[in-house]
């Protein structure tokens, strides 16, 4: 079974036509991979479908805008994978 990170990386590679081997757990989706907000909607859709969740993008964006969180917390891929794991775990409770 592939890891959460691998699933996300594969989705990003396919959705944004980014070479898979350039996507690492340390990659920042926006700053390093150059993914814009519109492309991120496609990624969010694919992630929502793949994991059966609803990523709270609005809440995350609001937290970043209000200075309560940094973009690293949600958009560095290892952190994004951790957030997704939390959402999947919460779904099962």
């Amino acid at each position: 079974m592939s890891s959460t990170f691998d699933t996300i990386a594969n989705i990003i590679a396919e959705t944004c036509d980014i070479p898979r081997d350039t996507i690492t757990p340390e990659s920042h989706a926006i700053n390093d991979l150059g993914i814009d907000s519109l492309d991120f909607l496609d990624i969010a859709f694919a992630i929502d479908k793949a994991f059966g969740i609803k990523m709270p993008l609005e809440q995350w964006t609001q937290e970043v805008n209000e200075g309560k969180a940094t973009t690293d917390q949600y958009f560095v891929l290892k952190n994004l994978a951790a957030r997704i794991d939390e959402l999947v775990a919460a779904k099962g409770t």
Partner: protein
Amino acid sequence: MRLEYFLLIDRVVSLDLKAGTIVCESTVPTESPVFEGHFPRYPLLPGVMMIETMAQCAGWFLVAMNRFQRMPFLAAVRDAKFRSFVKPGKTLIAEAKRTHDGSGYAMMETTLSCEGRIVCNGTITFHVAPFPSPDFETEMRERAASIGLLGHEALADG
């Protein structure tokens, strides 16, 4: 349809919030300045207006689903296909089905039909955000009433 005003939905035929579907009807006007350019002596409904008609149909679904608390804005159109010409005077049926309800966005499969044949279809992504102003929301409620959305919304709620 009032093409020049981008008021492209005449009436809501059906709305089912649980099923995630909406059906709207519109009649293409027989005359419009739009047809002076598109095309001279060969009037056709522009493809961009077919897309917009489907988007407005799907958009009204999302407005109803969000109880007028949020407004959908066009974000992306995917796999749009224009399968047939649409001439003035024709009645169109726009249909939309919600395929995904995300956080701050939604995706809808849409079709536009004329005389039983699909003339256009595509997948539309919307940003779904709070209304930027109370006046805008009020105006949209008035438009919703004029096309019969509010009655359907009440019916769909049982």
